[in-house]
């Protein structure tokens, strides 16, 4: 018998919301996360987040620093997956130079103490995360030279115009823009190459026929997010176009297993929260309460769809890698060795692409974008872990 009614994997917005709603309704809930503090990627280290305060009062138990694998299914009678998303990296010449990070990575580095005061920063890629990263970098004294948004200006303005439907978002966006006074925000351009001797020193930015150089000490790139579906796949949950397929109650194809947040579709904090709430309520047997949230969920899903189409990646971004550009960082595999491979399996077996510590989480998403095939199988553990953690305790 499980000690808990509900086990939640992931302590980001979706997992926290699910745990709160379930625990507040009397369920015994454990939240399992491999990070030292709750909040996930988005609320990392933010002390004043109301949901985290609410979580602390909810009665749910937090298990931190815990290696997560498919045995998590035995931790609760029901299981809610809220494993979130990671950044999508598209390879371009120079992307592996020191000083080049993801936009989420830059935010995480700054929050964990990286001093950026006086550093020249270029932020490039697509979507609202660029603004969030630029805002944070600037607030810590960085000189943000340019925010290069790949989506054409018309698409970005259209999206901003639609924000009135989502007042919370509009406010957030406006605050960001205010913070950013003085920062150059250019739509319809992208970084095509990062250059430097042993460290990024400048980037080449391109808009159509025109290309120019921007000097910088840091380049943060963000091309969007990829859902962390590995654990769901190991548990046998059906996927649909790369995301976990869920029904009205956020239930997956595996009985007793629910999924909420980015792994059902990239959509941001609010979609994650409402899906988490629905999953938590449904798993706790409060279907009627969950149903009252359906319209809010539908609204945030529409927002997510608009976000996706406004910031859809231009095809040119998938053609920036040259023959010698590294695609698989763990195993140092250049594009030339991957072109012409028929499948992820063949690429893996013949080039070691995806065989290193990331297990295809980074390069497998990149090859899907640039070569049309990507990581299609998951082997345990869901996340790299010490050998001792693979062993079952003798009592079990």
């Amino acid at each position, binding site marked *: 018998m499980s000690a808990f009614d509900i086990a939640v994997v992931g302590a980001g917005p979706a997992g926290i919301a699910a745990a709160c709603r379930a625990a507040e309704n009397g369920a015994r809930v454990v939240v399992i996360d491999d990070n030292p503090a709750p909040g996930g990627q988005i609320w990392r280290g933010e002390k004043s987040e109301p949901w985290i305060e609410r979580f602390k009062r909810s009665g749910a138990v937090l298990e931190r620093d815990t290696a997560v694998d498919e045995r998590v299914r035995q931790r609760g009678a029901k299981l809610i997956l809220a494993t979130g998303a990671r950044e999508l990296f598209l390879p371009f010449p120079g992307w592996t130079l020191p000083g080049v990070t993801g936009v989420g990575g830059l935010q995480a580095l700054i929050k964990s103490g990286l001093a950026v005061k006086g550093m020249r920063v270029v932020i490039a890629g697509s979507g609202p995360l660029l603004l969030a990263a630029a805002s944070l970098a600037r607030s810590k004294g960085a000189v943000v030279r340019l925010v290069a948004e790949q989506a054409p200006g018309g698409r970005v303005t259209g999206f901003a115009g639609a924000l009135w439907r989502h007042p919370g978002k509009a406010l957030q966006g406006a605050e960001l823009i205010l913070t950013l006074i003085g920062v150059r925000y250019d739509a319809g351009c992208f970084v095509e190459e990062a250059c430097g001797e042993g460290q990024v020193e400048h980037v080449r930015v391109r808009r159509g026929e025109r290309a120019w150089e921007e000097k910088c000490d840091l380049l943060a790139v963000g091309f969007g997010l990829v859902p962390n579906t590995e654990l769901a796949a190991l548990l046998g949950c059906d996927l649909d176009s790369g995301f976990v397929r869920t029904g009205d109650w956020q239930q997956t194809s595996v009985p007793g297993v629910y999924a909420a947040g980015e792994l059902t579709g990239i959509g941001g904090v609010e979609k994650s929260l409402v899906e988490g709430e629905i999953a938590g309520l449904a798993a706790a047997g409060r279907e009627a309460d969950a149903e009252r949230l359906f319209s809010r969920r539908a609204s945030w899903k529409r927002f997510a769809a608009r976000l996706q189409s406004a910031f859809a990646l231009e095809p040119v971004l998938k053609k920036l890698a040259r023959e010698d550009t590294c695609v698989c960082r763990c195993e140092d595999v250049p594009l030339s060795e991957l072109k012409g491979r028929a499948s992820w399996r063949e690429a893996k*077996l013949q080039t070691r692409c995806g065989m290193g510590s990331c297990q295809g989480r980074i390069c497998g998403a990149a090859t899907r974008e640039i070569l049309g095939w990507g990581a299609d199988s998951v082997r345990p553990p869901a996340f790299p872990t*010490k050998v001792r953690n693979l062993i079952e305790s003798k009592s079990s």
Partner: protein
Amino acid sequence: MNGAAPDVLIVGGGIVGAACAWECSLGGLKVMVVEADVPGSGATAAGMGHIVAMEDSTPEFHLTRYSQIIWNELVHEMPAGVEYLPCGTLWVAVDEEEMAGARRKQASYLGRGVPAELLDARQLAEAEPSLRSGLVGGLLVPEDSALYPPVAAQWLLTQSGAEVRRGRVVSISDSGAQLEDGTLLTAGIIVNAAGAMSSKLMPGVPVTPRKGHLVITERYPGFLRHQVVELGYLKSAHAAGGDSVALNVQPRATGQVLIGSSRQHGATHKEIDRPILSAMLRRAEEYLPGIMDLVAVRCWTGFRATTPDKLPLIGPWPGTQRVWLATGHEGLGITTGPATGRLVADLILGRTPAIPAQPYLPARCGHA
């Protein structure tokens, strides 16, 4: 159709099928290989890639040593991706009884012309510092090695010039190899090199799958220098039935550590079996305590093609005119693939093999 039917149709593009294709093509035969998936993606990808001379029976010694000699010529022509690592095998003794076994083993190797060096406790600790203290000694067989088999299999296939066709064979008979989609592929000789699947294609072939687990870590250059195997390994490998685990750990050219081994009869699902995986890792810990703190990136399973007498089936299948077998290599298919290919080509072309072929002939199974 690409002209006339091939002289030889090989069913299975693993290391054994690829070696058969290579040797038959070298012998001037027209070869086609039919493979259900990516070449080298079955047991060839799942196994360790240990090239090891085994001395516990004369036929096993002949095939493994002969193959090792062929490998030593081949690897120098192969691309760097084959990750050839001349690491040797270190057989480890935990007590005096096993040390006596090591001495017998050394005498057997030396008597057959294979270098083998006895190590006392101190020499063992110097040779492999990650081993725990308190071990009695060991036997170092320096000419053994390790490599990455999928790249080797692909190289053999490509270099052979054989036509490689994607297709899932469902049955093999004198009339040809029947594909899932209904196509019938014909040839002068059809070689069943489908490994653990070979009995599915030809009921009556005495090959059963024997499941194994492996774990690979991140890169820890220097953690392990040799393929380290416990002297009790043969008890596990040759146990008639039941499940067993034994220490068999390999350093990869990348610095990664590959941890085995387990053997299960009757398990047909690909999923990890936690109890046996746990037993296997605890066994490794008994010898290499530090292994528990290495970070594992991947666990997987595979199926060995096992025969009742633990020797492979190489040659014509009695009761047929044109169907041959090249299967049943158990846990030694990477080692013995090249010699198998050489034997198949020798027998087809009427050449005299360098080693006696008789012990491996399928006729020994008494098939009507």
